[in-house]
């Protein structure tokens, strides 16, 4: 048999071939372990839950925040041994193929050299494979750091932008402050709700819902338009665009039958269909607001009375929410709350109106028919006709209750504004008691402090609120036109809430 030493030259090229083959075997197995190629064999990962539970969201965890680690473990188990396994098989084939036959004197030593080359090559190849695995670990670690840092930056930017824009969100149904609305997946037939869509472990710029649809994470940067928001406290739907624009809360408060609902309907009608926006366009931000408005608007246009607002037991008092787009500046969500008069009269019930906490402009309705001097100056026939429409609660009592509860809820009234709407002006416009009283706020105030005998209430209003403005309003349409007092009131409200509209208060 030939001595093996003359065949030593076979070792370097053989070792190189086997080292290359080891790397190839590793990469092929790695591709399979990562779910790529024709024979994917990725690690088993639990699918996302169908609904949010605990800290889990119904979304796929971002690759780098979980699945990448599972892939590394899986690759260590299945791909790293690939060089040994492949070459062990070759070793037997080489020894079997070279150990028999007529030329065994030549093939047997060559086979031994090849096996030796294989041994050297596999050791070298394995070192290369371990280095490649380390590269993969380093790549995943670096990407994780970069993506996590990007997520943190975007999250901080989102919070900062929210703060700069002054965005604070309240639920129009339960009135609780909402830090982050839940968002419903926009894919047809999905309906999975995501509690916190901000950049995080489920995605930095986008996240993948359990149904496979991609959802934006940066709601504030215009990504939330397609998704429907829900309140995390009561699960009721929230308005379109909630959480992306600043919100204005205007509670309409006053005793029962002072005309709150009609005034609010006239305001909304003026904003949506009329000139009350003073250059700003308004649209309903949710179906509930539009449906509630349509019923009342029909009555207003038909010139019939609206029913007293009655709170159905345990049913939430919902705001009428409009998206107001001023000619200049950013849009706003305007929530106008119509509080039933019964709640206003009872202190313990008034505390349920938690939305008051978010308000900085209050609208107080004062029924002109309830002012004694006006009532007494009306002809007897008018008094008989209007008796049903007259509010019978004392203005000073109602305002005192309101003030006590507004302050009790922690509203800094010294920084808040109060619009006082003297309602039903159309019924008493020509009575003697109002003769010579103009539509200017100071004229109305002087009349209230003087002949109307409400100086105590006016004093309390001016003492507690930063700004008080008086308006004479009528919620009846004159030839289909909205009363000038209502238009003036809406203009003042919008300007005072920072909207750049064409109105000089």
């Amino acid at each position, binding site marked *: 048999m030939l001595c093996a030493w003359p065949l030593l030259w076979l070792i370097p090229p053989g070792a190189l071939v086997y080292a290359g083959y080891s790397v190839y075997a590793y*990469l092929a197995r790695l591709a399979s372990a*990562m779910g*790529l190629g024709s024979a994917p064999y*990725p690690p088993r990962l639990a699918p996302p839950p169908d609904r949010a539970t605990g800290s889990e969201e119904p979304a796929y965890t971002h*690759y780098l925040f979980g*699945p990448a680690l599972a*892939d590394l473990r899986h690759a260590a188990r299945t791909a790293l041994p690939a060089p040994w396994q492949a070459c062990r098989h070759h070793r037997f084939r080489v020894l079997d193929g070279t150990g028999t036959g007529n030329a065994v004197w030549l093939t047997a030593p060559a086979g031994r050299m090849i096996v030796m080359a294989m041994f050297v090559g596999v050791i070298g190849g394995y070192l290369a494979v371990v280095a*490649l695995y380390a590269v993969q670990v380093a790549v*995943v670690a670096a990407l994780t750091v970069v993506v996590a840092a990007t997520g943190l930056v975007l999250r901080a930017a989102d919070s900062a932008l929210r703060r700069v824009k002054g965005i604070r969100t309240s639920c129009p149904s339960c009135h609780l402050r909402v830090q982050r609305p839940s968002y419903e997946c926009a894919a047809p037939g999905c309906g999975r709700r995501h509690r916190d869509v901000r950049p995080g472990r489920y995605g930095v710029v986008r996240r*993948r819902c359990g149904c496979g649809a991609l959802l934006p994470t940066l709601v504030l940067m215009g990504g939330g338009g397609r998704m429907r928001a829900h309140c995390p406290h009561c699960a009721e739907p929230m308005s379109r665009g909630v959480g992306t624009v600043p919100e204005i809360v205007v509670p309409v408060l006053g005793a029962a039958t002072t005309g709150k609902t009609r005034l609010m309907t006239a305001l909304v009608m003026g904003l949506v269909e009329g000139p009350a926006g003073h250059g700003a366009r308004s649209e309903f931000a949710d179906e509930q607001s539009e449906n509630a408005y349509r019923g009342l608007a029909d009555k207003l246009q038909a010139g019939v009375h609206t029913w007293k607002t009655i709170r159905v037991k345990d049913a939430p008092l919902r705001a009428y929410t409009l998206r107001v787009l001023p000619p200049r500046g950013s849009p706003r969500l305007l929530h106008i709350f119509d509080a039933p008069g019964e709640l206003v009269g009872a202190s313990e019930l008034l505390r349920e109106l938690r939305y008051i906490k978010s308000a900085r402009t209050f609208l107080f309705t004062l029924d002109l028919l309830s002012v004694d001097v006006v009532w007494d100056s009306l002809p007897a026939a008018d008094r008989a006709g209007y008796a049903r429409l007259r509010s019978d609660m004392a203005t000073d009592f109602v305002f005192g209750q309101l003030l006590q509860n507004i302050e009790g809820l922690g509203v800094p009234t010294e920084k808040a504004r109060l619009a006082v709407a003297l309602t039903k002006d159309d019924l008493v416009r020509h009575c003697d008691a109002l003769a010579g009283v103009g539509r200017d706020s100071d004229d109305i105030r002087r009349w209230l402090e003087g002949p109307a005998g409400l100086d105590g209430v006016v004093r309390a209003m001016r003492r507690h609120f930063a700004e008080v403005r008086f308006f004479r309003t009528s919620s009846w349409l004159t030839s289909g036109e909205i009363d000038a007092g209502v238009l003036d009131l809406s203009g003042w409200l919008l300007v005072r809430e920072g909207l750049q509209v064409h109105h000089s208060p």
Partner: protein
Amino acid sequence: MQTDPYRPWRLAVFLVVVAVAVLCAVPIGLSFLRYLASLGAR
């Protein structure tokens, strides 16, 4: 069959590993070819 939601990321990581392997293999292969050429010259 539902597609793998992580496929783009997996493909990216895999391609980086392959790219590193190729970048390292090229100089090693060239060195070996030079070694063979020197053997032939002798």
